[in-house]
């Protein structure tokens, strides 16, 4: 495949897929270790009412109001979960289930009741995203990467998710030690003066930001998959956190690239003519990777812990 075809049509979706996957997988490592993996699930559900309300308020589908709306919805959800958990003395899982399903239902209802026929805003879009449509029409080959005129025509999702990924990576790098300590031994972390409550909240917020930025480009299903599958697979590969994060990035990138390629070209190999959902395929690929590590990962069993009888 020539650069003239690849660069405009496939390069940007693949890059966006990779950046999204990495931005979600990085905080996902800590969420998986802290047994908070389903936060990603909850956040990606509650984002829907956020963007719908943002659309109703501003009347456009511009990116920034949507992201603000989504972020506000995520914060509202976290606060609600915490409030219900404390006020009602209900375990976290159930409180989460109450909040995110209800907020999602509210979002769907708002969407159905409001006139969104003129804009591209529907539930399927929210779930599946539109990775395939994020093409770079101004490019006509590899040399466009150095051409400022063509670069100006990049889909805006690309720089946005890239900045998000870098920000997430930098934050995790800066807070590496406290994050690591408080993830493995919260009591000790408190003992050495780390504010574990604030740190845990910050982790959730960073995850929410990553989810919201990714959501815009690729839909919620990929977000949930990337929060959990690459870190979970990486967890089965190694006992060291540094290596786990590295593996998770590798798995995230592989999922994004292979998933996109399978979605775009896989059907052709089987005699089909149309591409299938890239978001779905990326999630599926990450699942296959997880399956392989579950079956063959070197550190897959609980060491030292008694097996469940």
């Amino acid at each position, binding site marked *: 495949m020539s650069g003239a075809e690849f660069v405009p049509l496939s390069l940007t979706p693949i890059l966006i897929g990779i950046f999204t996957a990495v931005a979600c997988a990085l905080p996902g490592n800590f969420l998986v270790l802290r047994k908070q993996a*389903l936060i990603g699930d909850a956040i990606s559900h509650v984002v829907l009412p956020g963007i719908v309300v943002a659309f109703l308020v501003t009347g456009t589908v511009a990116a920034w109001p949507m992201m603000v709306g989504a972020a506000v919805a995520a914060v509202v959800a976290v606060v609600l979960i915490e409030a219900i958990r404390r006020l009602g003395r*209900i375990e976290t899982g*159930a409180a989460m289930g109450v909040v995110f399903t209800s907020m999602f239902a509210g979002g769907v209802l708002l969407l159905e009741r409001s006139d969104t026929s003129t804009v591209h805003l529907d539930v399927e879009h929210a779930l599946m995203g539109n990775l395939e449509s994020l093409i770079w029409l101004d490019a006509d080959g590899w040399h466009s990467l150095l051409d400022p005129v063509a670069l100006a025509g990049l889909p805006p999702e690309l720089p946005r998710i890239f900045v998000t990924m870098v920000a997430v990576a930098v934050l995790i790098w800066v807070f590496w030690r406290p994050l690591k300590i408080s993830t493995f031994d919260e009591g000790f972390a408190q003992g050495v003066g780390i504010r574990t409550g604030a740190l845990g909240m910050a982790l959730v917020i960073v995850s929410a930001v990553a989810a919201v930025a990714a959501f815009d480009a690729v839909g919620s*299903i990929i977000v949930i998959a990337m929060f959990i599958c690459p870190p979970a697979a990486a967890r089965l590969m190694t006992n060291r956190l540094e290596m786990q994060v590295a593996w998770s990035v590798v798995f995230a990138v592989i999922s994004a690239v292979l998933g996109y390629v399978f979605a775009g070209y896989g059907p052709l190999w089987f005699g089909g003519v149309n591409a299938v959902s890239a978001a779905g395929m990326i999630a599926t690929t990450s699942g296959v990777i997880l399956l392989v590590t*579950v079956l063959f990962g070197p550190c897959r069993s609980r060491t030292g812990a008694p097996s*469940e009888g």
Partner: protein
Amino acid sequence: MLVDALTLQLGYNATLVAVGAALLGISAGVTGTFLFLRKRALVADAISHATLPGVGLAFIVMVALGGDGRNLVGLMLGSAASAWIGLLCVQAIVRRTRLAEDSAIGAVLSVFFGFGIVLLTVIQTMSSGRQAGLDGLLLGSTAGMLRQDAIVIAVGGALTLALVMLLRRPMTLVAFDAEYARSIGVEPARVDMMTMGLVLAVTVVGLKIVGLILIVALLIIPPVTARFWTERSERVVAYAAVIGGVSGFVGAAISASAPALPTGPIIVLTCFTLFVASLFLAPRRGVLAAYLHHRQFQQRVHVRQGLLALAQQQPVYEPLTIRLLARDGLARRDGVPTDAGRARAARALRDEHRWQIVQTLPEYEAVSGLYDGLRDIETVLTADQIAQIDGIIGGPREMPA
């Protein structure tokens, strides 16, 4: 229009759907209670999302065999099969690896759903791919439902409910005391599988009404809501059934009463409304009750402390205390005690002395633990015991100046 819907006047299909939704809600409420008590509420989320690839495959197979891809029974069978596989995956991951259950749930949920989306896009491109009927399964849609589908839902709801009723006892047993259950020959693992089977049945029946994304709400919200109203397990089950049934029925009716009111979200929001009402209004566990209880406790403490201060002739400055004392006619607005106030204050001080003696006597060790500054000593000691303590205190003494 809404009244018509609630009284089942909107035609045969709408009636069947409303009845089916009510039955589904009851089954979901009961099944969900056992999930909730086992603290496994979110496993249902994995199960429900895992139905999607089965739906897609069933559609493709049915079309390939030359049938109508939207046959509801076929889709339900397909979804049940893939949801079961999803459940087995969750359990295999938890049992065979060191990943926690939440990671397993999230992984299965997203991967199965992602694969389902892939299949949906495949169906979209198939020549006979009128997949309008499949989109409805994501969020539930009962508008324009076929007569036979409505019958399937009503019958499915009734069957699920019957199964729930049959399995209720062993599930309660395992939820509360798995060890005891095992000792009398009820294998917890098997009962857990049955519970999951019921979750699966609820999900499959609910596909068309509530949709696979939101069905988990019907399994989680009713038991959580019911828990506010009672501490007894069989009542939680019963209340959850009522809450689920009412949500299903009212939600389906509201949805049928006007266009652009999708059934699934309406049912879930009806349920959520009941939840919010319970969160605030439930007796004892509700927020309002807790606040009132807190207020009452605060007032008792303030009155007690105020009385002790009056008894020792210390001035009371704290405004709330003065207000409370004045309200009860124990003191004037300027903090000077009334006669009744003086009597109560003396009694409070005497009780305080008695408690102090009680705490020094080894034979009252158990009782002295009950001291919280508020409890009347008459409620924990007999008249004889109090007389003995009064003997230790001795007769009236000069008040310390």
